[in-house]
């Protein structure tokens, strides 16, 4: 059995918010219909019912993910676990949760809020090295975002940090 002395390390949450030119019902379909979900998120066996399990392939973000639907309340809220075998630089496995919140806006638009919580924080001993790298990568991303604005997002780090990602 492996012990995890760093278990007291806070986990972090990534929050991305954006308004979409589509009704909540349409966005819900895009989030829960396997063929449509595959087009933007990755190949999957999605079944949007509480307690259902499915897999999701995201080669660039953890490989094959094992998901269990925790909440499915159409067309408002969808939440599932996001677990992967891959580990990060410090051997932390991915054991997280993704929640999609849909809020109706004027003119048939939808506010989509993606909350990805429970992400392991790079351990302190490695953290400084990785953070310096991430800082540089972040600077590169900002430059790119200026040219082609991405969805508005921010990272919420509990008491660790709070920063805006892309304006």
């Amino acid at each position: 059995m492996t012990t995890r002395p760093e278990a007291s390390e806070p986990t972090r949450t990534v929050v991305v918010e954006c308004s979409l030119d589509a009704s909540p019902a349409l966005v819900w379909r895009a989030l829960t219909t396997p063929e449509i979900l595959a087009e933007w998120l990755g190949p999957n066996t999605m079944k949007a019912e509480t307690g259902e399990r499915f897999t999701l392939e995201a080669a660039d973000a953890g490989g094959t993910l094992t998901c269990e639907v925790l909440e499915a309340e159409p067309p408002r809220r969808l939440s599932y676990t996001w677990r992967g075998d891959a580990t990060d630089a410090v051997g932390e496995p991915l054991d997280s949760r993704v929640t999609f919140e849909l809020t109706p806006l004027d003119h048939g638009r939808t506010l989509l809020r993606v909350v990805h919580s429970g992400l392991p924080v790079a351990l302190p001993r490695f953290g400084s090295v990785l953070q310096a790298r991430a800082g540089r990568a972040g600077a590169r991303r900002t430059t790119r975002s200026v040219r082609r604005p991405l969805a508005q997002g921010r990272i919420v780090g509990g008491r660790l940090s709070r920063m805006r990602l892309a304006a």
Partner: protein
Amino acid sequence: MAEADLFRVLADPTRRAVFERLLQAEMTVSDLKAGFAISQPAISQHLGTLKGAGLVQERREGRFSYYRADPDALAPLVDWVDRYRSFWPERIERLKDVLKRMDQ
């Protein structure tokens, strides 16, 4: 080296510990051995793997080899938070394109 390979190389706790010690100072194998409860050949094996991944560099001086970690080799690595910070905005851009093509 591909990111996945770097993750794999550093996923081993002993190897990671060797790498971390070499981030702090240049050392010979016997210097390194002092801090570990494993044999010199085992340490050499970990050093070989780290070298192969470009994470550690070797400098020969006389009869001795000195090893040091190369932090630049970590460049492709990000932590999960950093990865998803770019993943979700990119996927949402794709979602927007998909929504445009869907029947209202």
